[in-house]
């Protein structure tokens, strides 16, 4: 086997294929007398205005979140009660959030503010900050900048996203416009799910089986 030094491969992907593809693309398009123009349109078309009415974004967000089997809460006490009820007593919490939440959690909880990937199965819940939410679809927005650990929001059975009420966008086009410069943004719409086996809906495939938004 010819082992090329790492540097050579990393800096010099083959340029022969690049040239071949580019010249074939140019050749394929050359015979076209005119090219299809970009249509002028507005994404307003894809917005569910009639659903919004004049209700506020938070009301719609919680309504739509329930539709995708998510849970919207506004009180920390209610969150703690939920976790206790599900016997989810051990978990991870973003260190920035913990001072605000700690007083509400009882001694029956074990909460860590560091995440150890060697112990993925130990965390029943993970609490992280969201960058915002989308009302129309009941979506929570996570970004590299706001979410303390990608794994902390993904591997526990329960994910709690702390969302600021003022950061709820009304629809997808608005949320797209707000993507910003973060190198990773992920929209999460309800718990992880599959219907691969006989079309039967099962939640909690690789990600959380319970998705909670704590709106503050």
């Amino acid at each position: 086997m010819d082992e090329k030094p790492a540097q050579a491969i990393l800096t010099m992907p083959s340029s022969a294929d690049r040239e071949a593809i580019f010249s074939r693309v140019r050749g394929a398009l050359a015979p076209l007398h005119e090219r299809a123009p970009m249509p002028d349109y507005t994404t307003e078309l894809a917005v569910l205005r009639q659903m919004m009415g004049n209700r506020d974004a938070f009301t719609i967000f919680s309504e739509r979140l329930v539709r995708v089997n998510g849970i919207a809460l506004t009180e920390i006490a209610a969150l703690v009660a939920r976790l206790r009820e599900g016997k989810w007593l051990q978990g991870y919490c973003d260190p920035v959030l913990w001072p605000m939440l700690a007083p509400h959690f009882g001694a029956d909880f074990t909460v860590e503010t560091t995440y150890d990937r060697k112990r993925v199965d130990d965390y029943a819940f993970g609490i992280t900050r969201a960058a915002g939410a989308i009302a129309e679809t009941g979506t929570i927005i996570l970004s590299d900048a706001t979410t303390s650990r990608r794994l902390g929001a993904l591997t526990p059975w329960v994910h709690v996203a702390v969302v600021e009420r003022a950061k709820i966008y009304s629809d997808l086009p608005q949320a797209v416009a707000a993507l910003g410069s973060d190198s990773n943004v992920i929209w999460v719409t309800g718990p992880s799910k599959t219907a691969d086996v006989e079309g039967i809906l099962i939640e909690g495939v690789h990600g959380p089986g319970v998705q909670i938004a704590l709106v503050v």
Partner: protein
Amino acid sequence: MRFQQIDQFSAELKADTRAAVYDGSKKGHEKRTKLLYDEFPDPDRLRHIAGEVKQHVVENLDTYLPQVEAKLKANGVIVHWAATAEAANEAVLGIMRARGATKMVKAKTMVSEETELAHFLEKHGMEALETDLGEFIVQIDHDHPSHIVKPIIHKNRREIATSFEKNGLGAYNDDPQTITRRARNFLRHKYLEADVGLTGANFVSAESGRIVLVTNEGNSRFCLAATKCHIAMIGIEKIVPRDYDLGLFLNLLARSGTAQDLTVYTEFISGPKSPAQPDGPEEMHVIFVDNGRTEVLASECRDILRCIRCGACLNVCPVYRQASGHAYRSVYPGPVGAVLSPLLMKEKFPQKADLPKASSLCGACNEVCPVNIPIPDLLLRLRNRAKEENVPSPGTPPMGAWALLASQPTAWRASLFGGKVMNYLPTKLLPIPALRAWEAKRALPAWRGGEFRAWMKNRPKQS
């Protein structure tokens, strides 16, 4: 051969499989229609616009490809180009070797199915594990996906439970919940051990170089949270011009594909992880794959490159529902596959030139397509091409006798009479092979020929 290949396959299909495919695709189609028409005032308009946007991209790839390459590089992504499947696989292997990596976790990507990446890597001593539940089951079963969105639509829970048992994933249990939990527990440790995460892309924005990935299970997110190196294998046609266009396409993709308002995980990736983020890839590669796409672009079927792989045309297709995906002998089944698969064969086109004939040209695929691809027109063009290239067409009934009847009035009248006689004959007993094959599956309708001629003759003359 008595039938065309696809008919033969369909005739031999197990009743179980046919029922699973039929129900699954029908349900998918009905849910989609309800969702689109309940929620949008004018869903048809959305499709038309989305189609125009993608057609614009396809016809301007010479501008968009360099643009997207520059953006990706500016975002810190290493960009590779692969003209063939082999080149794409070699590029992945090269990246893995350079990192001393041996373990890959793979999210679902159709391009890597095209290039048979997992097999290739395994041959070279690498582990390449599929993480999408359906694809994982296909992999441990040494099977092939039969639908582009629902890979195991052809399997029932009992088959899955049996193969889990065989592969050491617990004693036989065919409860879908148990199956899913077992896969969860097995796979999560695999992600964390892996060196490289491989994904495809649903869209790439030329404006920002943002790659958009959608999954419901969260497997691609897990790949990008657990591993240190991300490789995205992307067909060169996956571009949309602007971030703005994503609002439209994401709406259409989830609704058309799985009848959801939005797929559960929609991830926007514009480079390696942020420095402050502890989890995720420090290195990111994009491999743009041609593998026949530029030939499609040069053909008169370039419209098929608009496809966003939603699977709606499979779900609605009466032929797909009866024949199931494997009948198409290709990575892409159904109407989209009937166009794309023969074209991607390049000079081996004749091997799959029968696929475009597996259609009644009913047009349902065009009506549901979120990018409004005129699939029936493209099928006709490919049938024409097969004819022009003199590709033999076994199993197609010869049309010579028909041509004779239709061009000789006397012969035609005689045949009408013959048709009437058939109503009084025990057709089941006639020794005509074609008739027997037909009657084995269905009842021959009563002959009603000649009514139009009679009407035409007797109609009142217009002054």
